[in-house]
C-alpha cells in the first residue's frame, strides 16, 4: 500500500497538495467566526455545478428560453429542485457576501499587506452582482424581462458611452435573441471565468497572508484540518439547509406557489407588467432611484445619472479606498462607521420599497394578475396542443380567458358590464348604459331578459334607448299577462334560444333537453309566441326589424354582431351607439373572436383527472 501511495505521490505530489490545503495554521485555533469565506466558496461551487446542469437543458433565444426553463421546472425530474437551488443560492450568496465584507472591514482585515486581496474581494462582489443581474433575465419571463429592461436603460443614461454600451450589452437596438445569447455568454462564460481567476488569486493571497486572527487568542494554534474544516462544513450545511428551506417553502407552508424559483408568464413586450421589480437584493438601488428626477440636472448631469451612476460609483470608490483610509486609526473607525451606515441605508431603502408596494392596491392587483397569468400559461402549455414553435407567448395572446376580460374592459365596459364590473373585476363608478353580458345567451340570462320586472332594469335595456322599444313593451305588457300554459311555453322558447348559442357550459343540459328544445324551436317560429313578428329565425325575413335569432349567441353570431351591430341582420338603423368594431377597424378579427369566446365561456380547461 505504502509503495503504491509513494508511486502516486512521486507522480502527482498529492501529499503536498493535501498538506497545503489542510495544514494551514490558524492562530488561536478554529473558530466559528472564520467560516464566511468558506461558505462563499461553497455557494460559488453550488452555482457552478447546478448552473452547468441547467445549461444542458437551457436554450437561449426569445422563442425557446422561457419554454426550456418551463420544461426544466415542470417536466424534467427534479428540475424544480435544481433550478430552485441555483436561484436561492444566489440570494443567500448576496447576504453572505455582505457579512463577509462587513467582517473584513470591522476586523481591519484589509490593512497592509492585504489591500490587494480586499480589492479582489470587491471585484468578486461586483462579479456576483453582475451574475445575479444577468441570470435574472435568462428565463425570459415577464418579471426578468421588465426588471432587466430598467437596468439596461439605466446603463444607457451613462454620459458619452451609455447608448453604445447598452446596444452592445443587449445585442442591438431592442431586446431579442441576441440579448439572450449575450446575457447567457456573460452569465455562463465570461463572468464565471473572471470569478475563477479572482477567486483563485483571492484564496492564494489569503493563504499567503494567513488568517486575520481575532485577539485575544483563546486556544493554542491549530491546523485548518480537522477542527476548522468541521466548522466550515457545518456552516455550509446550514447554508444548504437555508436554501432547501426556501426551495421547499411553498410545500412546507402550503402557499400554493410552485416549488423552487418562480417562473412568471413569458416575456411579452406588448403586455404591461406593473409587478416588475428587481430581485430583492437590488431593491435598495431601485428605491434610491425614486428620489432622483431625470428632468433636473446638476453640474451638467441629470439627477438620474447622479442617483443611478455617480453616487453609487462614488460610494463604491470610497469602499475601494478603505484599505488606504484605514491606515489611520480614525480612518479605520470611519470605514467601520461608513459600513454600518451603508448597511443601514440599504436595509432602510429595501424596507421602504417593500412597504410602499405593500400599501399600493394597484401593485397587489398587478402581482395577483401576474400570478394568474403564470398559472394560466402553465395550464395551456400542459394542454394537448402544447407549446407551439412560435413560443409560449402566443398561448396567452390567443387565450380568451386571459385576453377577453382585458379587451372587454377596454372596449365594452364603457357601456356594458360583466357581472356588474368591467370584466377584469374592477368596480366602475358610472351606471351601465347597456346590458350586463355575464352569462349572455344562457337560459338564466334570457329568462331575465324576458322577465317583465327586469327587462328595463340597467342589467338589460335600462340604460339604452330600447327601454322604450317594442321588445320592452311586449315583455312588460304581453309576457306579464301570460297564462300558466304560456309561461311553460316560454321556458321552452328560452331553452331553444339558448341552445342556438351552443354554449360549452350548457352542452350537457342542451343534450338532455333535446325534446324540449325542439318544441321551443317550433314555438319561436310559431305565430303564437310572436317572436317572428320582429325577429327572423332560421328563415330569411326581409321585414325583420330586430336582431336575428338564428344561431343567437353562437360564436359566428357574436362575431358578426360585434363587427357591425347596425347590420340589417341585427339592429339596422335602430342601433343604439354601439360601434361597428370590425367594420370600423376598431378591433381586428382575432380580438373580436377572443371577446366572443370569452363571453361564451369558451376557453381551454384541463379535464379533471
Amino acid at each position: 500500500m505504502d509503495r503504491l501511495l509513494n508511486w502516486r505521490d512521486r507522480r502527482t505530489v498529492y501529499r503536498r497538495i493535501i498538506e497545503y490545503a489542510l495544514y494551514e495554521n490558524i492562530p488561536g485555533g478554529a473558530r466559528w467566526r472564520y467560516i464566511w469565506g468558506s461558505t462563499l466558496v461553497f455557494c460559488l461551487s453550488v452555482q457552478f455545478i447546478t448552473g452547468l446542469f441547467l445549461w444542458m437543458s437551457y436554450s437561449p433565444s426569445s422563442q425557446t428560453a422561457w419554454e426550456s426553463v418551463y420544461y426544466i421546472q415542470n417536466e424534467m425530474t427534479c428540475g424544480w429542485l435544481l433550478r430552485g437551488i441555483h436561484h436561492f443560492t444566489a440570494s443567500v450568496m448576496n447576504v453572505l457576501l455582505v457579512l463577509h465584507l462587513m467582517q473584513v472591514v470591522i476586523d481591519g482585515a484589509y490593512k497592509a499587506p492585504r489591500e490587494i486581496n480586499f480589492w479582489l474581494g470587491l471585484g468578486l462582489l461586483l462579479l456576483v452582482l453582475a451574475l445575479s443581474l444577468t441570470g435574472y433575465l435568462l428565463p425570459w419571463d415577464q418579471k426578468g424581462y421588465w426588471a432587466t429592461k430598467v437596468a439596461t436603460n439605466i446603463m444607457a443614461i451613462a454620459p458619452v458611452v451609455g447608448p453604445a454600451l447598452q446596444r452592445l450589452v443587449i445585442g442591438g437596438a431592442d431586446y431579442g435573441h441576441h440579448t439572450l445569447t449575450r446575457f447567457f455568454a456573460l452569465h455562463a462564460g465570461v463572468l464565471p471565468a473572471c470569478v475563477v481567476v479572482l477567486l483563485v488569486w483571492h484564496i492564494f493571497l489569503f493563504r499567503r497572508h494567513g488568517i486575520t486572527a481575532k485577539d485575544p487568542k483563546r486556544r493554542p494554534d491549530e491546523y485548518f484540518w480537522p477542527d476548522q474544516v468541521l466548522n466550515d462544513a457545518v456552516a455550509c450545511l446550514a447554508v444548504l439547509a437555508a436554501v432547501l428551506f426556501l426551495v421547499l417553502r411553498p410545500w412546507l407552508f402550503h402557499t400554493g406557489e410552485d416549488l423552487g424559483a418562480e417562473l412568471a408568464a413569458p416575456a411579452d413586450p406588448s403586455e404591461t407588467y406593473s409587478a416588475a421589480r428587481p430581485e430583492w437584493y437590488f431593491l435598495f438601488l431601485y428605491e434610491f432611484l425614486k428620489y432622483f428626477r431625470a428632468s433636473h440636472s446638476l453640474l451638467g448631469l441629470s439627477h438620474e445619472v447622479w442617483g443611478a451612476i455617480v453616487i453609487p460609483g462614488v460610494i463604491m470608490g470610497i469602499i475601494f479606498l478603505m484599505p488606504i483610509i484605514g491606515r489611520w486609526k480614525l480612518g479605520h473607525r470611519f470605514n467601520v462607521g461608513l459600513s454600518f451606515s451603508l448597511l443601514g441605508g440599504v436595509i432602510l431603502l429595501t424596507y421602504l420599497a417593500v412597504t410602499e408596494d405593500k400599501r399600493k392596491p394597484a401593485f397587489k392587483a398587478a402581482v395577483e394578475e401576474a400570478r394568474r397569468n403564470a398559472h394560466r400559461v402553465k395550464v395551456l402549455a400542459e394542454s394537448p396542443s402544447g407549446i407551439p414553435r412560435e413560443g409560449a407567448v402566443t398561448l396567452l395572446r390567443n387565450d380568451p380567458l386571459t385576453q377577453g376580460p382585458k379587451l372587454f374592459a377596454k372596449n365594452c365596459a364603457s357601456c356594458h358590464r360583466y357581472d356588474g364590473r368591467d370584466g377584469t373585476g374592477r368596480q366602475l363608478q358610472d351606471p351601465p348604459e347597456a346590458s350586463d353580458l355575464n352569462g349572455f345567451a344562457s337560459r338564466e340570462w334570457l329568462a331575465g331578459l324576458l322577465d317583465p320586472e327586469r327587462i328595463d332594469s340597467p342589467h338589460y335595456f335600462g340604460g339604452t334607448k330600447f327601454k322604450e322599444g317594442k321588445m320592452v313593451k311586449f315583455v312588460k305588457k304581453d309576457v306579464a299577462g301570460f297564462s300558466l300554459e304560456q309561461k311553460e311555453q316560454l321556458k321552452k322558447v328560452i331553452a331553444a334560444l339558448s341552445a342556438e348559442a351552443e354554449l360549452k357550459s350548457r352542452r350537457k343540459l342542451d343534450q338532455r333537453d333535446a325534446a324540449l328544445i325542439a318544441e321551443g324551436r317550433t314555438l319561436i317560429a310559431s305565430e303564437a309566441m310572436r317572436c317572428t313578428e320582429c325577429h327572423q329565425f332560421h328563415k330569411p325575413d326581409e321585414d325583420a326589424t330586430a336582431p336575428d335569432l338564428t344561431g343567437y349567441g353562437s360564436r359566428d353570431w357574436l362575431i358578426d354582431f360585434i363587427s357591425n351591430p347596425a347590420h340589417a341582420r341585427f339592429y339596422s338603423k335602430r342601433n343604439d351607439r354601439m360601434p361597428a368594431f370590425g367594420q370600423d377597424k376598431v378591433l381586428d378579427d382575432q380580438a373580436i373572436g377572443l371577446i366572443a369566446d370569452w363571453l361564451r365561456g369558451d376557453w381551454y380547461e384541463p379535464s379533471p383527472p
Partner: protein
Amino acid sequence: METHDVPQQPARRNFIKKTCAVFVGAVTGLVPAISGLIVFLDPLRRKSQDSDAVLVASLSSLPADGVPRKFSVIASHTDAWNRMPRVPVGAVYLRRIGDEQVQAFNVICPHAGCFVDYDLSKKSYHCPCHNSSFALDGRIADPKSPSPRGLDELDVDLRNGNEIWVKFQNFRAGDKEKIPA
C-alpha cells in the same frame, strides 16, 4: 507559503471530528450535484413517442414496375417543450410489389444512421457513408456490406383503395435486431 510556527500535529487524531467533517462535507456537496445528476438523467426515464399510421402518398403516385420512390413523412411531433401538429419527421421509400401491395422502408441506414440513396442504374439502395448496399426488397445486397441488417421495413396499410398509410418508426442503428429507438 510563509513559514509559520506550526503546532505539533496531535499525536492522537481526533477521529470523530474528522469523520464528521468528511461526512458533513460530502452530504453538503452531494445534494446539489445529485439534484443536477437526476435532471441530467431525465432522458433515460422518457419513453419514445408512439406513432400512429400516417398518410404518406397515394398508390397511383407509385410506378407500377416496382421502382421505389422517396416520400417525406409528415406527422405530429413532440420536441421537448414544443408540440407540432404537422412537421416532417423522416422519410420513407415506397415501392409497389403487386397491384394492391406496397412495401415501405425507412430511409435511415441500419448501420450508422445515414440517409440511404436509391441508385436507379444499379437498382439498389446505397448508403453514401460506409457503402452499405441493399437490394430492392431491402435485404443486404453485398456480403461486404457493413450494415448488420437489411433496411427497416415499416408497416403499411392501404386504405380507401388508393391511400398509403405508414406506421413510421425509427430503429436502433448498429444492431442485428430491429429494436425501436
